[in-house]
């Protein structure tokens, strides 16, 4: 159990590419942090630096009170779950789990107790004698988790552990990992490119893009007050609609191809801005009302729990979420964009204003 402090950590590869620009992140004891971002954003590099599998170019990482920069992976008191599980193919499940403990010189009886306990927790007792090749993907995933748990580490590291599982198993394991982590109370860092995993599992999310941390916050903060256009469009499915607009001070906001929208607070910037609205915040009316604009229905996507209305505004695709009760008749409907639901971003920097 430990607090993890990442202080201005930077990674530059020998060929000169900067995988991570100086980034800082402080993780509380027992917290579940998800690093999320598209591939190549530096999230795995950061995780591997914490694990000790990559050198740290600049900055310091400390786990507990110890600065671990110079320590070998085995000395950092961490356990890691890999994307392809990385089980030892020549060892039985039992030996896979016992290996790390044996190398630390733990007495045989204690090893056995720890392995049995972890196996029970993960419901893999009946597989202990099997080789990894005789297990299904989900079972291997459990063994990989078991190998991490028996170590009783200060920190869990997860490197996209669910991406090799099918959708149903993924949902199930997602919940199980989270439950397990709560029970054990071990600080955890979880890397994924899947924003749903990030939203559902994290205490706090760090969104990374091109080697930079764009925003750190709780899932609700990230979703409701995204710090940049990137975070706004990356988090959420379907993604946030982004439209071009212009703000000329005094509450006058013009959205391109849509017209005037009244905003109740004054912005600090004037000029070109980008306007974002989540699909579920768009109000759709059958008849024209004040502050609505007519839109053409391209098609409706059935979700079961609702429907998505697809259209284009100007040349920009636009999506609105409809409840099941909401009936759509005809090809044209009227959309209202409530001012309180709008997210406004500086068009040049992409930051929230």
């Amino acid at each position, binding site marked *: 159990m430990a607090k993890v402090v990442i202080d201005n950590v930077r990674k530059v590869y020998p060929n000169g590419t900067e995988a991570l620009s100086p980034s800082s992140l402080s993780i509380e004891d027992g917290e579940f942090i998800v690093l999320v971002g598209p591939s190549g954003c530096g999230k795995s590099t950061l995780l591997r630096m914490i*694990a*000790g*599998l990559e050198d740290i170019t600049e900055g310091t990482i400390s786990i507990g009170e110890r600065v671990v920069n110079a320590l*070998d*992976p*085995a*000395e*950092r008191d*961490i*356990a*890691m779950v*890999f*994307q*392809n599980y*990385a*089980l*030892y*193919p*020549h060892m039985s499940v039992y030996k896979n789990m016992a*290996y*790390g403990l044996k*190398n630390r010189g733990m007495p045989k009886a204690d090893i056995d107790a720890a392995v049995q306990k972890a196996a029970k927790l993960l419901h893999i007792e009946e597989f202990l004698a099997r080789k*990894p*090749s005789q297990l299904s993907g989900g079972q291997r995933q459990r063994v990989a988790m078991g*190998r991490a748990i028996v*170590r009783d580490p200060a920190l869990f590291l997860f490197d996209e552990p669910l991406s090799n599982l099918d959708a149903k198993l993924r949902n199930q394991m997602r919940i199980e990992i989270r439950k397990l982590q709560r029970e054990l109370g071990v600080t955890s860092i979880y890397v994924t490119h899947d924003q749903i995993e990030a939203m559902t599992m994290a205490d706090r999310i760090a969104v990374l893009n091109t080697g930079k941390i764009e925003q750190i916050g709780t899932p609700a903060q990230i979703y409701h007050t995204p710090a940049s256009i990137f975070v706004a469009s990356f988090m959420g499915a379907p993604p946030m609609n982004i439209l071009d607009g212009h703000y000329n001070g005094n509450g006058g906001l013009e959205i391109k191809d849509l017209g005037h929208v009244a905003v109740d607070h004054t912005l600090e910037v004037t000029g070109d801005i980008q306007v974002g609205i989540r699909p579920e915040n768009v109000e759709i009316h059958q008849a024209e009302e004040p502050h609505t604009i007519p839109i053409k229905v391209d098609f409706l996507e059935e979700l079961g729990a609702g429907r998505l209305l697809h259209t284009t505004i100007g040349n920009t695709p636009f999506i609105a979420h409809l409840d099941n009760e909401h009936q759509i008749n005809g090809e044209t409907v009227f959309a209202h964009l409530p001012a309180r639901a709008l997210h406004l971003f500086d068009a040049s920097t992409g930051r929230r204003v």
Partner: protein
Amino acid sequence: MIKSQFKSPLFPYLLLLPQLSIVVIFFYWPAAEAIRSSFYLEDPFGFSSTFVGLDNFRDMVSRSDYVATAEFTIIFSVIVTFFSLAIALLLAVTADRVLRGASTYKTLLMWVYAIAPPVAALIGIMMFDTLVGPIAGFFQALGWNYQLGTNRFDTAFAMIVISIWKQVPVNFIFFLSGLQGIPKSVQEAAAIDCASSTRRFWTITFPLLAPTGFFLLIINITYSLFDTFGIIDVVLKGEPGNNPVTLVYKVFLDGFRGNDLGGSSAQSVILMILVLILTVFQFRLIERRVHYN
């Protein structure tokens, strides 16, 4: 299975005939001939032969020079196999860690593979030559009166070193590709689980290389028993004198120098049985070989 659609049932056999005839003429017929002549005593000029039953075999095993050769062959094979595997593994593990100039390093190590055994032996005897060889000179400078071709031990030493040197690149290539077949994440998981890199090698890397290792073991035993013929011939310059030889070389000596075709055939039959045992062993191993996903 796809069923063939030939009109005549004999036609497939006709298609097989060229391949079969090559196998029969070049492999089975000489082998059968060797087995046959191992039961006969042939006069040195090849005019007549007498059936002597198992006399050739009895004579062979009771002769002290045959027993001595067999003993030397075992020692020779064990040393050559062990060291060519061990050195190759050491080099492969080192090469696997190299990050810069890796391909140059690997190419340099593989180069020797392209040299034919007799040429390798020629280079070897130049190095080990009593008068001009730099290695012999080095030993002599250390106080070891190294005499290639006259001292039994010194000649065996050169044969062994040259044989190992020739075989290391082959093993190196196999070991290196075996090492590169071990998933990187497994090595990384081990790095988190185990602080000592030596211990990691023996508990993770080495067991995962075992299939490659078993395969190479058989290949290397076969090599040291049979394929070292060219090296031994060049080192001895065709005149063994008092120097040690291997069983295969003795077959050649007794048959073609000693004109004892019956005795030489009997020795070949023993070697054939040895190869047969090795082959069965190898097939068993390949069948049972652990398959990693």
